[in-house]
């Protein structure tokens, strides 16, 4: 089964990258370890969005709400429930997928832009609740000093935990994208009307996609807490959703690894350009404009077009 999914060249490239990432903490300063751990969380977030965006054709305008919801679920479990600290890591993704299911029940009745706008509105309601509910969520102050299991409380521990969880989740999402569900989902992206005509219940398929994407966004939320040890309402704000959307478009939303690349580029830009100017979003704006004009299919799309991408056609099949 595994052999059917991965071709040799891309497997070797991934393994090489994985080994390099495993050795990285031995060679770089602590700040970079922290930065990489944050990138892993964001890579997972962006890839989870792309399941519904690039592979499902759903205009998921407010994906961050599931990310923030997962982060808050972990923070609240750790600080208020008295349950073991690891319990939050299981509860959080389940909470996020439940939220995905509930919002999805309402939003999948609409399509395209209307779906996106409704999701934006409902997601903003959740944000407002978190922002205002001081007694429970800490309101706009958020929750700080969240106790974490010993294993992940050091920066190296958090790094390795985030790396492993991200790799496992990417593997599972890759399988899903290449499964009959994933194939059908791509059919819905291309032509929902035709899908109905060949017997597919499009809304149910989209609802499941929604639950899967929000589950992995919830996992990403827990990874954020593992790195930062705190949560705040901005994690559920639509501004972050927009940023993640840009990551997908920048990296290439028709490619499985596109959003991961986009996430690394954006976090890198924010960190390093942020050193020189606080107006780093101006740079982001310019990047976005260049993207629309010159790279409509993202960075990976450009490589693919020029035939530079690994494994040529075979690789493209595996990554699509």
């Amino acid at each position, binding site marked *: *089964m595994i052999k*059917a*999914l991965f071709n040799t060249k891309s497997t070797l490239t991934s393994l090489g990258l994985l080994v390099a990432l495993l050795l990285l903490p031995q060679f770089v300063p602590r700040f970079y370890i922290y930065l990489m751990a944050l990138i892993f969380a964001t890579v997972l977030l962006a890839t989870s969005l792309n399941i519904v965006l690039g592979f499902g054709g759903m205009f998921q305008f407010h994906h961050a709400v599931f990310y923030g919801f997962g982060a808050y679920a972990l923070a609240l479990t750790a600080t208020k429930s008295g349950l073991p600290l690891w319990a939050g890591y299981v509860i959080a993704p389940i909470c996020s997928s439940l939220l995905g299911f509930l919002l999805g029940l309402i939003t999948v009745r609409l399509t395209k832009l209307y779906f996106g706008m409704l999701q934006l509105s409902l997601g903003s309601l959740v944000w407002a609740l978190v922002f205002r509910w001081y007694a429970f969520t800490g309101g706009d102050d958020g929750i700080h000093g969240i106790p974490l299991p010993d294993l992940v409380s050091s920066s190296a521990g958090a790094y390795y935990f985030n790396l492993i969880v991200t790799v496992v989740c990417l593997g599972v999402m890759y*399988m*899903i994208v*290449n*499964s*009959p*569900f*994933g*194939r*059908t989902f*791509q*059919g819905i*992206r*291309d*032509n929902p*009307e*035709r*899908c*109905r*005509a*060949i*017997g*597919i*219940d*499009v809304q149910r*398929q989209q609802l*499941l996609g929604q639950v*899967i994407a929000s589950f992995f966004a919830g996992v990403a939320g827990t990874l954020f807490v593992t790195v930062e040890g705190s949560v705040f309402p901005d994690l559920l704000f639509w501004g972050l959703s927009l940023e993640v959307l840009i990551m997908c478009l920048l990296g290439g939303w*028709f490619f499985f690894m596109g959003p991961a690349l986009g996430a690394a580029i954006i976090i890198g830009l924010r960190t390093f350009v942020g050193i020189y100017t606080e107006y780093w979003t101006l740079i982001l704006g310019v990047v976005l404009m260049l993207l629309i004009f010159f790279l409509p299919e993202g960075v990976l799309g450009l490589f693919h077009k020029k035939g530079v991408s690994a494994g040529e*056609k075979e690789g493209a*099949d595996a990554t*699509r």
Partner: protein
Amino acid sequence: MLRVESLTKTFDGFLAVNEASLMVQKGDVTAVIGPNGAGKTTLFHLITGQITPTSGTIHFKDENITGLMPHRVCRKGISRSYQVVNIFNRLTVFENVQVAILSRRKQTFNLFQPAKTMAIQETQDILDSVGLLEKADMISSALSHGDQKVLEIAIALGNRPELLILDEPTAGMSPEETAVTLRLMKQLSSQMGITILFCEHDMQMVFSIASQIMVMQAGRSIIQGTPECVRTNQQVQDAYLGGTESCSM
């Protein structure tokens, strides 16, 4: 097999289909003909559930399917192709057909099996039967218009329909492509035993394949019968064929 009775659809007061009736017997090749705007496509949309009728009934195998959702109609055994090419643009030719087969096999919620190992033989058989096997790995949007229209039919075959509805299957095709499609339709009917309902403007094609013809005008079904019966019918002559120099329009 299919029984449409007094079917009516109004759009803001405009009668697109007006008390239309249609009978399709198992194994028949039934053509619906009529001028542009006669309501042929709307009739097909009504049968397959794309739009809901204002009044009237549709029975398929003695079961009332009036107003069912399109995916439910499909699961009853009715599959269709479209007048304007309606395929999965970013998927390969192979994947276009495979999606329909996965749907029929109720595999669309299967999350962990690699799709590329599934339904290979059946997909290849369908592509072979329509002559697209050599182009199986092409992205479908790169196909010629004629091939895309054939792929339309191939996707519909993925559902293993008992009744196949084709909306102008040869529209926009070259004479050679039309001949290939005609041969394919004959083959589907005679070898695979699929009941076919189609609409078409090419009268030569209609009279060469149809065993039953229903004539529509201004949303109404004027007559249904054998080609001979329709050809000689005075009402049809007056309303539809009469004013023209020959049978083709």
